[in-house]
């Protein structure tokens, strides 16, 4: 790939006490690239993407996002302005309406007027196909709808990069596809995406590269067609076996 590098991670290390969560992780991501990260629970995949927008500190190594080094003081704020994030538990603000959830960031952090922020919010609610829910509270929505609101909330900040931390793991099975559909469209629009998920169908469809992590290391990395057809490591083969048979 010769495109512009937007994320550069090198020799990243992190421990919680004696427990090593990340060991010498290297990964670089180009603009517009879609990366799907999978691996058993506790393999460090969530921690890795949480390091990218400064929600987690790291012990040593280097992360640069859009030219901003996360080692610099106050860099986390600047990086978060470029990077959106969608969480497993949605993390919508329950005391605000759907519309207010979307306008809070643009109004308070970007200084948009209420009118402009609401127009922006409605544009993205249209895109995730739930404009009619704008005046409701998150608690009145289904899980799938809530996650789509969460995606729209991130997009309102016009991020360059989107991080997804197991976005469908907390959803009932019948709601997974409505969220994945929105993510596929986002990928087709050329968004740079880092997605932690076990949805292998999604990975096959949109991923430029698959990353398999285990025990805090990147064990395997490559185009989905290549790694699915011929996993090189025994660990990845065993993992695929487990999750594919499970589905």
């Amino acid at each position, binding site marked *: 790939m010769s495109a512009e590098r937007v994320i550069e991670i090198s020799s990243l290390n992190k421990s919680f006490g004696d427990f090593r969560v990340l060991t010498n992780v290297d990964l670089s991501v180009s603009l517009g690239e879609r990366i799907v990260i999978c691996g058993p629970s506790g393999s460090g995949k969530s921690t890795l993407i949480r390091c990218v927008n400064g929600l987690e500190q790291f012990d040593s190594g280097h992360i640069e996002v859009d030219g901003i080094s996360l080692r610099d003081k106050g860099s986390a704020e600047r990086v978060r*302005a470029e990077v959106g994030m969608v969480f497993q538990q949605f*993390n919508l603000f329950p005391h605000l309406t759907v519309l207010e959830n979307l306008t809070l960031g643009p109004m308070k*952090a970007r200084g948009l007027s209420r009118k402009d922020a609401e127009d922006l919010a409605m544009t993205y609610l249209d895109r995730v196909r739930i404009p009619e829910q704008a005046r409701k509270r998150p608690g009145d929505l289904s899980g799938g709808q809530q996650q789509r609101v969460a995606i729209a909330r991130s997009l309102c900040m016009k991020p360059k990069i989107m991080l997804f931390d197991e976005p469908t793991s907390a959803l009932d099975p019948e709601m997974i596809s409505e969220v994945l559909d929105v993510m596929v469209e986002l990928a087709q629009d050329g968004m740079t995406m880092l997605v932690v998920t076990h949805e292998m169908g999604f990975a096959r469809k949109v991923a430029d590269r698959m990353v398999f992590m285990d025990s805090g290391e990147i064990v395997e990395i490559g185009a989905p067609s290549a790694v699915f057809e011929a996993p090189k490591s025994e660990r990845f083969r065993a993992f695929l076996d487990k999750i594919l048979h499970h589905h």
Partner: protein
Amino acid sequence: MTRTLKIWGLLLVVLLAAGCSSSGNTWGWYVIDPTTPQGQSNVKFLIGGFWATIQLSLIAAALSMTIGLLVALPGMSDNRWVRLPSRIYIEFVRSIPLLPMLFWVFYGLPVVMKSMGIPISIDAFWGAIITLAISDSAFTAEIYRAGIQSIPKGQTEAARTVGLTYGQTMRYVVLPQAIRRILPPLANQFIYIVKMSAFASVIGMQELTRRANELVVTEYRPLEIYSLLILEYLVLVLIISFFVRWLERKMGSDERR
């Protein structure tokens, strides 16, 4: 609520009945009998303390809630050096009994201030308010902390990822949610302040208890006068707890939505 009222009503009737029926000078309700001129002026004198007690409690509570928040916020920092002063303040303040602290503030603080070149005089009113506010702030700080920490960490993370600063995250995301869990115990704490304000009487503050004490000295009818005093606090606290219940119901029904 209504049951509490009934029980107290019953107690009152028993007391009055005892007062009327017993012979000798066990009871002497005449001191506070509003039908006689002397009794009426006595009752007026006693009830005249309400305003001071309410003023004292309200100002002290407002200060305590402000100080409490300012102590609680750094107490939740990830940085232990920011956390430490808050912890020390809470542990220190809540281990000092109210009365000694009141004496120290009223008699000692002006001396300290004077030695630092700031000659201020602290009257009974402000001495009591400062003491009540500081003493209570350790508890309100803990109430804030519990309320704020009950809000899932994901809320803060989501707020930070849509670009809000720490202050904005607190103001627009965390506190509006935490307030539902904070307000009822905070209002409860107000009842505590109202009752503790009685200590202001010992430094000469003319509130409910002080007035009762003064009347006892002249009338020498402690039983009747202190009975009325207790009733006065009862009325105040019942009004507040009615308000607290109402608040809890309102918050609770909001939560279920």
